[in-house]
Structures are given as structure tokens and as C-alpha cells.
């Protein structure tokens, strides 16, 4: 199994640990990742300005992956949605597709719809499979309360992202359950982290972020696990300004899913870059390691329904 690893613009410079921990975990599970230097921005940042400018960059990304005969694996939700949107447009909007193709031909590139786009979680859940991951677990968390925030653009709009049941997402929950951690039911888990408004309407952006942090803390969360790169930056970086401005009382530290899973697979915490999350300090690491216990033989009965994805 081999994928072109699409990291987008934020991860390689601001969240290296996300890419690194993902690579480590997948390497152990036999998934090969190829770093493709030619990939450009997914287009997402331009969406407010011009819809075509938003779609074009991802069409080029799809074309580059196709040229290399690889499917794309994405970590960031916004990149994921952009790539899926581009794919969708190329399939269904012939007029626009033609226009976009003319841009590609300048570089001698073309896209015929071959490239598949998969989110990292889908690769784990579907390609590797829950059972294989289970076989690779050496430890499990015994008492760890995690607030998972799915992120908007992985789930919605469902006919574009085609990721999971957009009302009752199961993939992320199944995967989190593997680590033994308790996934809390909390009000903001399917909502917006505020990233899309940062720099445009900071006040509102911060309000949305505050609401998520306090909501998760009220539900008893010790850590928050974002899926999207933007969510991560909101919780791991923007949160610190909220704390400095006393807009929240207590910090809610961030752990990425591959970091949690990596610990359970016996990977070293430093190779997973956990300390590189700016909300994590040394005491968190000690605490996390103390919470790691033997793998529970009994299956935790978690929602394991395979909901058909509505298209």
C-alpha cells in the first residue's frame, strides 16, 4: 500500500509532528508514504475570493498524483475537502473541467479522474483495518478522557467529502476506541473551531474557539484531539492567546490521533513529537505514560455500524 502524502501548507512548517507521527504509525502498519515536492496549496485559502481559483490548485495536485500513479492521502480536513471538491467538479461540471484542464496543459499535465483521495483516518479504518491495528497494539489507555473534534470539512457537505456518516460519524470514534481512551460526548464535537474566521473576524473566531474549549472541559475532557490541521492550530496555538487574555481559565492540551495511537503501538513519545504540541508539557507525558496499561482482551462495545455514505 502506497500513497502520495499530501501535507498542505500548514503541516510541513507549523505541525511537523502531525506528519511525523502519521508516518511512524503508518510505517508500522505497512503503509508507504511518498513525499511529493511538486504538490501545491490545496486552494482552500482562495475560496472566499474566487471559486475557480479555489478548485484549480487541487486539480493540479490530482494530476500530479495521477502522473505518479499514486492515490493521495490527506491529513488536513480542509485540504481533503478541497481535493474532493476538485475531483467532484472534474467529474460533474464539464464546462469548468475544460477550463481547468487548459491550465494544466501549460505544464503538460492532465487529469482523467484516476486519482483517489483518502483521508488518513480512512486509510487506517478501511485499508489497514481495525483488526490489523488491534494486532499491532501493545498497550491501551486505561482512563483517559478525550474530547474528539471531528472538524467540519471532513464531514460536510457529505456529497462532496464522501467520508463518513455526516450526522453520526463512526470512523473517528472507532479509531479512538482502539486506544482505550474514552471519547466524550460533548456539544462542540461536530462544530467549527473558528479557524475559518481567524484574521477576518477574530472576535467571532475566538468566541467559537472559547465555546469549544469550555464545552469540552465541562464534559470532563483532559485532552482534545483535533483531526484537522486548522483545528489543531486553533487549539494548540490560538488557544494560548485566549489563555493570556484570560478568556479561558484553564488550558485544554492537544493530542493528535496518530500520537495517541503511536503510544499504544509502543512507539517512543519523542518520535511522535508529542512535546512539540505547544500545549503539552513534561507532566502530560508522564501522566500519559502512567495511563498506558495492557491491551484489553474484551472488545469495548462501541458503535460499530457501517453506515452507508450517502452520495
Amino acid at each position, binding site marked *: 500500500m502506497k500513497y502520495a502524502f499530501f501535507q498542505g501548507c500548514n503541516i*510541513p512548517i507549523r505541525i511537523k509532528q502531525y506528519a511525523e507521527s502519521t508516518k511512524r504509525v503508518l510505517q508500522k502498519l505497512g503503509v508507504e508514504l511518498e513525499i511529493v515536492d511538486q504538490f501545491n*496549496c490545496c486552494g482552500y485559502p482562495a475560496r472566499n475570493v474566487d471559486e475557480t481559483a479555489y478548485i484549480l490548485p487541487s486539480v493540479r495536485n490530482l494530476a500530479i498524483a495521477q502522473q505518479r500513479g499514486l492515490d493521495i492521502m490527506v491529513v488536513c480536513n480542509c485540504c481533503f475537502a478541497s481535493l474532493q471538491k476538485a475531483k467532484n467538479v472534474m467529474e460533474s461540471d464539464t464546462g469548468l473541467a475544460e477550463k481547468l484542464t487548459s*491550465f494544466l496543459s501549460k505544464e503538460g499535465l492532465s487529469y482523467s479522474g484516476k486519482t483517489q483521495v483518502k483521508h488518513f483516518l480512512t486509510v487506517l479504518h478501511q485499508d489497514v483495518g481495525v483488526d490489523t491495528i488491534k494486532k499491532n497494539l501493545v498497550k491501551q489507555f486505561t482512563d483517559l478522557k478525550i474530547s474528539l473534534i471531528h472538524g467540519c470539512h471532513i464531514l*460536510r457537505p457529505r456529497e462532496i467529502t464522501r467520508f463518513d456518516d455526516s450526522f453520526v460519524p463512526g470512523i473517528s470514534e472507532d479509531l479512538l476506541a482502539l486506544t482505550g481512551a474514552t471519547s466524550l460526548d460533548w456539544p462542540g464535537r461536530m462544530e467549527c473551531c473558528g479557524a475559518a474566521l*481567524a484574521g477576518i*473576524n477574530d472576535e467571532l*473566531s475566538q468566541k467559537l474557539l472559547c465555546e469549544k474549549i469550555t464545552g469540552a472541559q465541562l464534559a470532563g475532557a483532559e485532552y482534545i484531539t483535533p483531526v484537522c490541521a486548522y483545528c489543531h492550530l486553533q487549539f494548540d496555538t490560538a488557544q494560548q492567546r485566549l489563555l493570556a487574555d484570560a478568556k479561558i481559565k484553564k488550558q485544554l492540551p492537544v493530542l493528535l490521533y496518530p500520537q495517541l495511537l503511536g503510544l499504544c503501538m509502543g512507539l517512543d513519545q519523542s518520535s511522535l513529537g508529542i512535546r512539540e504540541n505547544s500545549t503539552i508539557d513534561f507532566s502530560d507525558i508522564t501522566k500519559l505514560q502512567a495511563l498506558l496499561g495492557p491491551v484489553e482482551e474484551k472488545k469495548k462495545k462501541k458503535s460499530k455500524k457501517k453506515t452507508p455514505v450517502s452520495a
Partner: protein
Amino acid sequence: MNFNILLGLSVIVCLIGLFIRFSTWFSQGIAPSGSPAFSESRVGAAIKGVVSTLLGPRIFLVIKSFFADLLFLKRTFDKSYLRWVAHILIFTGFILLLLMHALGAIVSDSLFANYQPTLNPFLFLRNLFGVMVLAGLALAIYRRFSSKPQRLRNYPGDWAALVIIAAIILSGFFLEGTKMSSYSTFTRMTEEYGSLDEEETLALEAYWVAQNGLVSPNFAESPSAELVAAGKEQNGYNCIDCHASNRSAFGGFAATKVVGGFFSSVGDAAAVSFFYYLHILACFTLLAWLPFGKMFHIVAAPLSLLTKRVTNDTVSSPANGLNTQMLGLSACTHCGACTVECSSSMFYEYFDNDFILPSEKVQYLKNLAAGRPIDRQTLKRLQEGLYICTSCDRCTTVCPSGINLKELFVRSRYVLLENGKPETALLSHFSFPLALAGNFVDDHLKALKKVTDQFKDCFKSLADFSGPLNLGQTGSGNNESYRGCYSCRRCTNICPVVRSFDNPSEELGLLPHQIIYSLGIGNRELAMGSKMIWSCSTCYLCQEHCPNEVQLCDIFYGLKNDAINKLEAGASV
């Protein structure tokens, strides 16, 4: 004009140029007018910085940088082998030629007791170094052509550097070749260094014709083997101590095959002096041009790389911040490495604005730093180019000269706000990394305010209407799904943004369902002017929950696009 006058002139031009370039390092820069950085003593700050580095523990970084960054070109090596090989070949070949050949009287003479440019290994090495430079140039030219599809731009100045260096090396080879072939040079040398009678001279000549590329009027056909053998003996007595075989100067020797034709038309002595002047003129042109063109990077780039290694892009004093900025601007070689890797490349293709490409931005920013006037149209495009940037920092990571491009670009954005209109791309997610970094917060908010005001001037809000609303057709956009709305208001009820306000109608202008209503009555302008669309967090909850599949979030994006277009169209009229 003789050699010394030409040399003197080009040295003077070079020195004046260097003085001008150095003085800009400490006088120009990109910072808001009235910034304290301009009033501080820039030279003083630079000297302080350099002295404290050299006397402190950071001297080890300087040493490391000298070997890794300057000699080995590590930053180039890490990114592209092709560019690294090309640059190493040109750089090493040229520097060694400069030291061993051009400055032979000073460097080689003092290092090697038996230095003679006509003896091996020097004769051979001179050719080897020359061929290295030519091979490097060939790779560089190949790259300039082959990277064109990746948006690499070529200026005349880029070619000029390649052409001048090629002219130096090629004229050198041809000069050597003409000298080897020239009968008058041969005669002069035998008279000067040999003690031969007529018969012996003829034999020696025969040997040089057969072996060393000499073209002699006495030998229209190949000389006899006997004569050549006799000449070889003479060569052993008279020449070999000071002159190795011309065949070891393989480049010049190869040139002898080409230059023969020249002689019949201009005469061999004239050909030698032609290539001699071509060679020294090319050298002096490079020397005189050095401070003014991209070759200035041989001074600025090493300093920029050293500074980057020592400061790690965090310069403490504002004055040194500007000094570093200027050093960076003058270290740019327009190699285009940043542009080839730019994540915004497709935005460049779509918006067709050269300033989106980092290599073109940084070239133009020299004008901004120098305080040259910029016309309105260019300013507008420059601003757009500065905003349409994903802040992926690839350009800064990849720059072989170690220029802190991201700092230059971000700073320029906010400096330009002083005299330009704020760019509407400010209202896009390009602003996210800027907000995250938390730099220039006040400037950013000021710019946002300006854009918001423009919107207020451009669009009427619901409260502004005194008479009846326009029910006409103002265009429905290309998303027709709003027609499915049956007014259940599920969208507004589920919206996390609406929920955030005590009085959402007042704060947002129109609520999500009202935007859809506006489209329903054919008043798209009203929807475009509502603050709601710019407050939408794009979470897609409304769209997902709409029982009639109205694509609210997508419609909002369309409205935002159109609103920006209308604003831009209004601004340019």
C-alpha cells in the same frame, strides 16, 4: 588603450558601485514611515552585531557556516543536485582560475616556486577549470530552459551573467588556441627563448606543426616524419623546460582546430590580439558590472547566509532588522528556486499576476525599499501578490541565499497599506496564518476596517432601504438550490454564528434564511451586502441540515466572490 588603463577604469567603476550598494544596506529598507528603525544608527548597530558575534561563542556558527553554507553550498545541495553541481562547477572553476591564472603573478608565484603558466600542471589545470565553468554554465542554461513550465522567469540580467562568464572562458580558450596556432607568436618565442640556426628552426617548426597545433606558412602539407623527429630533439633542448605540450591544454588545443580559418582573413597576429582584447574586456566588464547586477550576490549572498546561520532569522535590534532585510534583497540572484516551489503557483496561473511569484516580488521590493514611486496599477498588483500567499514559508526554507523572504513579504504587506487601498484578499483564509502568528495585529485590524468600510459604501444594507425592496432580477448566481427553500429556518436555528450573538439580526445584517429569501425575491445585491456572509464559519451545518437541500454555505461562498468582484470593479472605475 592598454591593459592598465582598462583595469584601472573597471576597478574604479566597481569600487563606486560597491560603495553605492553598501550604502543602501544602511540607508534603505521596508518599514512603516516614522519607524524607530530608521532613526537608529544602522552602521553602528551592524558593527555592534558583527563584533559581538565574532567575539562571542557564535563565532563557531560563523566557522561552521563558512564551510557548510559558503564553500559547500549546503542549502543548494539539500534542494537540487542539478543546481548544486552547476553552481559548484562555475564557482570552483572560476575562483581557481581567478587565483591561479588571473592573479597568477601574485598568488601562484608566491605559492609555487616553479610556477609557469605554460608548464604542467598549471597549463592543464587552467583548461580543466575553464571546462568546469563551461559545464556549469551549460547546466545552468539547461535549467533556465527546462524549468520554464514551472514558472521560472528569465530576465536579461540573468542571461547577462551567463553570457559574460561564458565570454570570459570561451575567449580564453580561443586566445590560447590562436596563440598556439600563431606563426608570429612561434617566431617571437623562438627568437626570445631559443638559440637555433635556420635548419633547426625549421625542424622545430615541423614538430610544433605536427604536435602542438602550430599553423605555419612553410608547411602547407604535413611535415615529414624525419623532420618532426629532428624537431622533437630541438624541442627537448629549447622548449620543454618552460613549455609543456600544447596537448595538455586540451581546451585551447581543441580551439586550434577552429581558429585556423580566422588567420587567412585577418592574419594570425591580429587574431591573437582580437581574442586577447575580447578576453580582458569580458573580464573587466564582469568586474565593473559586479556591483550592479546579479553577480553582486558573490558579496551579498555569503553575508546573508552567515547572518541567517548566526541569527536564525531573529534579529534583536530593529536597525539590524532593516540591515538584514537590505542584505537579503541584494543577495537575491533571481535564481527562481522560490518560485519553482511556490505553493501559490496555481493562483499565479489563475490570477495572472507576476507578483504572486516570490522571485518576482522580491525583485520588485527593491524599489519599495529604495522609496521609488510606484504607480497605482502596479501597487494594486503588488498588493494582490503579497496577499495571495499561503504562508507555507517554502520560499524562505528553500532560498539558496538564505533570504528571510517571509519576513520581507509580510512586512511589505503592511507597509503598503499606508498608501494603498487594502487588498480584498484580506478577507480570505490567507489571513489565517497571519492571525495565528499575531504579528502586525493593529495594522491588520486597521486594514480590515478599511475593507469593511468599502463594503458599507458599496452595498446597501436592509436597514438603509426606506422604500419598497427591489424585487427585480439582479442575477441569481449559478447556484439555483435556493429555490427549494420553504422557510423552515432550520439553517438559522442551527447556525453556531447566529447563536453567538445576543442580537444576531443587528450584528449580522441578514440571518441565513433571510439571505435565501433575498435570493428568492431576486435581490442578490442585498444578500451580497450582508455581514452574515463574512461571518459564516463555513461549517456547513446549515447546508447539511437543510431538509430541502439548499446549499447555503456554497451559496454564501458565491456571494462572497461576487461581492469582492463588485467591490473591485467599483474600485477600478
